[in-house]
C-alpha cells in the first residue's frame, strides 16, 4: 500500500524543514517530499490539511511489562497505546520478569513485537545482572540481539565504582547507558516530594537532593570515563543546572524529562491521589519552571513518558502502599503541545525532542522524513479537543492523574513503515 500525505505542515527538524508539503510513501519508505505531489495509481491519500506532519514520534522510556507482568500491560496493548498517542517507536525498559539482562529476553521482546506489536519496539537491556547492581550484564550480547541502550531503570546503580565500570564497558560495546539517578539513602521511606505539601499531608518526603546528588555523581563519572551518558526522567531545578553546566564543559551527557514534570506539581498529591505517586516524585512550581527552561534552552534533549502501567489493585490502596508510576503514552503529545500553546517552545524544538533527538541519542535509523528513510510518520491535529476517559484509553492499566482532563491536540494518523496503525475517530 502506497500513501500520499497531502496538504500538511511538515515539520522535520532533522532536515530543518517547516513547510506545507506533501509526502509520498512507497513500499514503506519515504519516496518523495514536495509541493503538489501527485498520487500514483493505487495510492491512498491521507488528508493532512490543518495538521502537522512530523517524523514518527519516539518515546525512549516506556515500561511494556512484557514478559512476566502482563497483568499490567503487554506488548500488544502497550504498542496500541503508543500508536494512539502518536508514537511509532518505543524503547522498553528491562525491569520485566525476568529482567531483560540477556539476549534470550531481548529476542523474545523483539520477536513478539514484530509479530504482534503495532509500533517499533526497541528494547533496553539491563546494566547489571538482574538489575541487582552487583555485576555487569552481557551488554555486547544484548546489543547484538537488538538492545539500543542499557539501564537499570527503576533503581540506581548504587555502587559508584560499578557505575564507572559500566560506563567504560558500555563505551567499548558502543551502547548508551541510561541512568536512573537517585540517592536511595536520602529517599528513605519517602513517598512524595519533600516540602510544604508533604508537611501538610503528613507524608514522608523525598528531598530534591536525592536526585541532584545522584545526577551530579553520574555526570562526574561520565566525565571521568569520557563516556556518553543519558539521564532518565529529570525533575528538579538542580538536575537541570548540573546537566547544563556539564554540557557547557563538554561532558557527553543527555537527558530527558516526562510530561508530568512540566504539567503537574506536588499539589496533585492532595487528597492522597495515588495516581500522583511516581518516582521521581512531582515537584514544586519552581522546578516545573526550571524543567520548562531546560527544555527551551536545549539542556533537556528529549521528552519521554516513563509510561509505567500498574494494576488497579496496586494503586487502589493507602498512599504509602501504592506503587510508583503512571501511564503516559496517550497523554504525552497533548501535554507537550501545551508547551507550544503556552509559548514555552516552538513546534520545531518540541518535535526535535520527540523525534530526532531520541533517535540520535540511541543511534536509531528513525526520527527523519528524509527520502529513503523508513516511513514512520505522525500526523498531528493540534486543535483536536478531547477528554481523557479511562475506558477509552488503549493501555491495559488506567493509572493516570490526567483522567478527566480536557486535552487539546493529538495524533490523527500514526503511520509505521508506511502502514496506518492508528486513525483518530
Amino acid at each position, binding site marked *: 500500500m502506497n500513501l500520499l500525505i497531502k496538504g500538511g505542515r511538515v515539520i522535520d527538524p532533522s532536515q530543518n524543514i517547516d513547510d506545507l508539503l506533501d509526502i509520498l510513501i512507497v513500499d514503506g519508505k519515504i519516496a518523495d517530499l514536495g509541493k503538489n505531489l501527485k498520487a500514483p495509481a493505487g495510492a491512498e491519500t491521507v488528508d493532512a490539511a490543518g495538521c502537522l506532519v512530523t517524523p514518527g514520534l519516539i518515546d525512549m522510556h516506556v515500561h511494556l511489562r512484557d514478559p512476566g507482568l502482563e497483568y499490567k500491560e503487554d506488548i500488544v496493548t502497550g504498542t496500541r497505546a503508543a500508536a494512539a498517542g502518536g508514537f511509532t517507536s518505543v524503547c522498553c525498559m528491562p525491569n520485566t520478569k525476568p529482567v531483560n539482562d540477556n539476549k534470550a529476553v531481548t529476542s523474545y521482546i523483539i520477536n513478539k513485537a514484530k509479530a504482534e506489536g503495532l509500533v517499533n519496539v526497541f528494547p533496553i537491556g539491563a546494566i547489571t545482572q538482574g538489575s541487582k547492581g552487583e555485576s555487569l550484564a552481557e551488554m555486547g550480547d544484548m546489543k547484538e540481539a537488538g538492545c539500543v541502550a542499557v539501564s537499570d531503570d527503576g533503581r540506581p546503580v548504587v555502587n559508584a565504582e560499578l557505575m564507572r565500570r559500566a560506563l567504560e564497558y558500555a563505551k567499548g560495546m558502543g551502547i548508551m547507558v541510561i541512568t536512573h539517578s537517585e540517592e536511595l539513602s536520602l529517599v528513605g521511606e519517602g513517598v512524595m516530594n519533600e516540602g510544604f505539601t508533604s508537611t501538610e499531608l*503528613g507524608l514522608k518526603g523525598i528531598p530534591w537532593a536525592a536526585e541532584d546528588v545522584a545526577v551530579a555523581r553520574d555526570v562526574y563519572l561520565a566525565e571521568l570515563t569520557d563516556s556518553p551518558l543519558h539521564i532518565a526522567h529529570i525533575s528538579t531545578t538542580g538536575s537541570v543546572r548540573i546537566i547544563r553546566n556539564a554540557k557547557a564543559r563538554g561532558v557527553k551527557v543527555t537527558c530527558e524529562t516526562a510530561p508530568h514534570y512540566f504539567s503537574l506539581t506536588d499539589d496533585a498529591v492532595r487528597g*492522597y491521589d495515588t495516581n500522583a505517586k511516581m518516582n521521581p516524585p512531582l515537584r514544586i512550581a519552581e522546578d516545573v519552571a526550571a524543567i520548562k527552561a531546560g527544555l527551551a534552552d536545549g539542556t533537556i534533549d528529549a521528552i519521554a513518558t516513563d509510561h509505567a502501567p500498574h494494576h488497579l489493585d496496586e494503586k*487502589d*490502596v493507602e*498512599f*504509602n502502599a501504592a506503587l510508583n508510576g503512571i501511564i503516559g503514552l496517550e497523554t504525552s503529545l497533548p501535554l507537550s503541545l501545551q508547551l507550544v500553546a503556552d509559548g514555552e517552545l516552538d513546534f520545531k524544538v518540541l518535535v526535535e525532542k520527540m523525534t530526532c533527538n531520541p533517535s540520535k541519542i540511541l543511534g536509531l535509523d528513525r526520527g527523519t522524513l528524509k527520502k529513503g528513510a523508513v516511513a514512520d510518520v505522525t500526523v498531528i491535529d493540534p486543535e483536536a479537543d478531547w477528554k481523557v476517559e479511562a475506558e477509552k484509553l488503549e493501555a491495559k492499566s488506567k493509572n493516570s492523574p490526567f483522567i478527566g482532563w480536557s486535552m487539546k491536540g493529538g495524533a490523527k494518523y500514526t503511520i509505521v513503515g508506511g502502514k496506518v496503525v492508528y486513525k483518530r475517530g
Partner: protein
Amino acid sequence: MQFKHKDIIGLQDLTKEEIQLLLDTAENMREINDREIKKVPTLRGKTVVNLFFEASTRTRTSFEIAAKRLSADTVNITASSSSVTKGETLSDTARNILAMKPDIIVMRHAVSGSHHYLAQRVSCSVINAGDGAHEHPSQGLLDMLTMRQKFGRLDGLKVAIVGDITHSRVARSNIFGLTRMGSQIFLAGPPTMMPPGIERLGNVTVCKDMREAVEGADVVMMLRIQLERQGKTLLPTLREYSRYYGLNPAVLKLARPGAMVMHPGPINRGVELSSYVADGDQSWILQQVENGVLVRMAMLYHVSGGELATE
C-alpha cells in the same frame, strides 16, 4: 447548629464554629462523667467499631468509654487480631466491616491519608483516631478543651509545642485547630525533626531553641519522643535530647506564671519531661485524659447527627 460532616478526618476541615460546637458539647458531657451512673441513652442501638491498625491503649480505651457512656455498642478490632496479617487490603477489611452495618468506624492507621481513603469507600461515619503523621483530631480537641477549661478562651494564647514535629499528628491537629481559634503556636525541636514549610501551616513561628518557644508561653506542650519512629539518624542520644529539648523546672520558669504543661502521653519520664514537671502543680496531663473522653463523646454524638447536647 447542626454539625454537617459525616466524618471527622482532621481539624483542618472544620470551621471555628464547628470546633466551638464540638467543645461546647464536650463541656456539656462533663456532667454525665461525674454522675454515679455514667450513662445516657443518646446512641442506644448504634454500633461503633474501633478499628486500630496501630497499638494504642489510651485513645482506644477513651473512645470505647465515650461510646459506652452514650449507650452505643462497641467492638474493638486491633491489628494483631485483624485480617491485616492475612494480607487483606484496607478496602476489603472496610467493606467487610461495613457489611455488618456499623454506624461509626473509629480508625487508627499508620499511613497518612488512610481515613480519606476509607471515608470515600464506606457509607457510615469515619472518625480519625490518628493517621500517620497527618492528624489526630480528638487529641487536638481535647487539648483545646483543656486550655479553654483553664483560660476560658482559645484566642490570643501563646502555645509552645516542643519535640519531633515532623512525625507528630498531634502537632498538626493542634496547629490547625489553634490557628482557627485565634491562638499562636511556637515550635521548637531539633532541625532534624522540623518539617519544611511548617510555618505556613497556620499561625506558626519556628523558634531557634526551646527557651525561645517557652518564653512567655501560656501553654507548653511536650511531644513524646519515639525512638522507634525517629530511627538512628535524627538524634544522637536521649540524654542529649533531654538536655536541649526536655522540660525541667528551670526552663518552665521562662513561661508565663501558672502556664499549663501538657503532653499527649504516654510520657517518657526524664526524657522530654522531668518528673518534677510531669507531676507538678502546673501539669494538666491527667486532665487532658479526662477531657479526652468528653471530646470523643461529642465527636461520636455529632457525626451521628445530634444537635447540641443538653442532657
